[in-house]
């Protein structure tokens, strides 16, 4: 079981992640968007969205540091393990809290604002579920594993991190994960599941982060005779049926 979950499953997910993105980009450039719902609701979004997104940027940054940089390196520059730990918590906790609070606001908003809720597809719901689970488990691991030391202290930089790197070295060290606490195991598996879902959800917008804006000229000129590239949408036809709640209820809505 461990062998599959931590030795094979990650590869499957990563393969789907890469191939899926290539496929989606080639066949669905039109659907590649943030699908913003700001037009429907503004007040909660103005608070929740920046909290969540900036929090997530911090969390992702923290993961890159924690997972990719071997402990040996930080040791080598004379950063003691305790100091690293404090540093990680000082940076990680606020980011994590911001992301969770932001997510809570956004989920609340999605559920309670009628138009936003009706614009939420099943695809979105499943994705939010997995994303929410991954984030909450991550927070739990931090609190339980490092802060309060439930069931003994676990140093993920001795376990999860080398395993994660071993995946990319093409010789996954399954035993490292087998020894990890359950919280970390589930977090890792769900995170890979999220990677597999990524190309098929609205999460693709992450890869549109418009960094190029910083150094392109303000006004873009383009010549007309550019042929439509692959992934273009063919002209659509047909009238759309308005989605009305079937039985109009009495009284004001």
């Amino acid at each position: 079981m461990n062998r599959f979950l931590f030795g094979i499953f990650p590869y499957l997910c990563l393969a789907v992640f890469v191939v899926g993105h290539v496929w989606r980009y080639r066949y669905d450039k039109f659907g590649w968007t943030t699908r913003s719902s700001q037009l429907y609701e503004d007040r909660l979004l103005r608070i929740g969205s920046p909290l969540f997104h900036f929090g997530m940027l911090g969390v992702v940054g923290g993961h890159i540091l924690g997972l990719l940089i071997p402990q040996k390196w930080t040791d080598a520059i004379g950063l003691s393990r305790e100091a690293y730990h404090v540093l990680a918590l000082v940076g990680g906790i606020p980011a994590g809290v911001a992301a969770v609070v932001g997510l809570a606001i956004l989920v609340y908003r999605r559920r309670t604002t009628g138009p936003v809720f009706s614009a939420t597809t099943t695809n979105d719901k499943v994705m939010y579920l997995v994303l929410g689970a991954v984030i909450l488990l991550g927070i739990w691991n931090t609190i339980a594993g490092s802060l309060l030391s439930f069931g003994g202290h676990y140093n993920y930089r001795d376990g999860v991190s080398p395993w994660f790197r071993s995946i990319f070295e093409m010789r996954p060290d399954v035993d490292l994960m087998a020894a990890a606490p359950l919280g970390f195991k589930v977090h890792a598996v769900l995170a890979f599941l999220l990677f597999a879902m990524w190309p098929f959800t609205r999460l693709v917008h992450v890869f549109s982060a418009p960094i190029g804006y910083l150094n392109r000229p303000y006004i873009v000129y383009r010549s007309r005779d550019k042929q439509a590239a692959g992934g273009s949408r063919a002209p659509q036809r047909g009238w759309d049926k308005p989605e009305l709640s079937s039985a109009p209820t009495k009284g004001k809505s």
Partner: protein
Amino acid sequence: MRVMAQMAMVMNLDKCIGCHTCSVTCKQAWTNRTGMEYVWFNNVETRPGLGYPRRYEDQEEWQGGWVRKPNGRLTLRAGGRVKKLLNIFSNPKMPSIDDYYEPWTYDYETLLNAPRQQQFPVARPMSLISGKPMNVTWSANWDDDLGGATQYGPKDVMLKGIEDKVKFEFEQTFMFYLPRICEHCLNPSCAASCPSGAIYKRAEDGIVLVDQEKCRGWRMCISGCPYKKIYFNHKTGKAEKCTFCYPRIEVGIPTVCSETCVGRLRYIGLMLYDADAVLDAASVENEHDLYAAQRGVFLDPEDPQVRRAAEQAGIPGDWIEAARRSPVKRLILDYQVALPLHPEYRTMPMVWYIPPLSPVVDVIKDTGHDAEDQANLFAAIDTLRIPVEYLANLFTAGDVAPVNGVLKKLAAMRSFMRDINLGRDPNEEIAEAVGMTAESMYEMFRLLAIAKYADRYVIPTAHVEQAHALEELATDCPVSEYGGGQSAAFGEGSGTGGLTPVAVENLRVLKEAQTADSLDDLPVENPLRGRLNLLNWDGKGMPDGIFPGDKTGTPK
């Protein structure tokens, strides 16, 4: 000098009757889809009034367009690139659906399914946003024809500085219509605000378009455009805007709004301009100089040097010829009667307006004086601070002098033409009083009053004939099937559709039919020859049997 060509429009506001035909035909052609219910690429506002979306002209609030920094450089009013990116997760200045209106339909099903009952069944309004029943409290044109002006009128942003003077009592107020489309600016702040670089200005004809495949839904253009002429499709999550009907323009026929305009008040033609001069012109210090500065960017196609430079810049010969005949150029440069809308936004808009003389004429008429007498008109223009100042707030950043000048030309034309119509000798002095010759005044009259289709629209065809593939987009028959019959796995409109559009006729065929004298004169290969399509019948041709016969049974 870098010569570029720009497709531009002028509207003669005196002739707008506020019928909204332009808005409706545009909507039928382009925005008759879910997610776009509230979108009006063309809208007609009653002024004084709030406009659409409400109070869009209040840039203190919406932060659209450009501002000049103390060091003389332009920057987006909403902040530079870094600030834009930091705000990317939620746009602080995005109008909400309430600033437009909540679109609705009616629950017609109740009418059809109602059982026998005492009371007549009612189709209640249902929101197209939430799908629930709603109360209609606002729409795109709630204050049409000064409806509710006592309540809404004072909130008009353009009353700044003259608030206490504009009266909204029925007898004392004035009113005119302002049809608006995207300005296809020379210095578009929408494009500058787009983080993805999805909004571009076409190098050939200056039409500003959103690349639907590059748009990622960051919404910065919506707040960046000071005219609020970019709309967010709330189903597909992409920005959409007026396309200047480019598939039609490419085959040489005017935009839908122009074609269908009841007042025939729209003019379309090319302007040549110096692209290198745009930024400097948009950055002049005094807002009052912006109108003149923008006029200074335009190049005169009569100048052989300009023509040579245009050729070198790759502008085809027939385009240069079209620029010489352009009605827009005549109104903007030769007669100088057209003014830009809100030059103070510094986007260098390219849909210009001939301000209406009618509010002035109405005042004179009401006082019982001769409203076609030049002296009366001139005196009124000079003394009537309202509406002249109001017009100046719209068209010249508040500078009354150019508005006065234009109104006097229109007034002079009115008196000048009266003499001719009454069979008197034309009075050259009237023309000279406004710096024109009798001949040019007469030509201007012809262009403004009785110009033919071919004179109002001088549109050279596109050279890479790609239009054919594009033209089907809007002209195909939309009644095929609910939902278009395609799946959209990742949200509205995603995925590649595989449908081949079937058009009743294409735009090229339409153009031939539009410009022929009779359908029988069309070339043999034109499918409309000797036939007609009832869906867009324009009165040309009268085939047998189209009207029922007389009593004897013989068809007329």
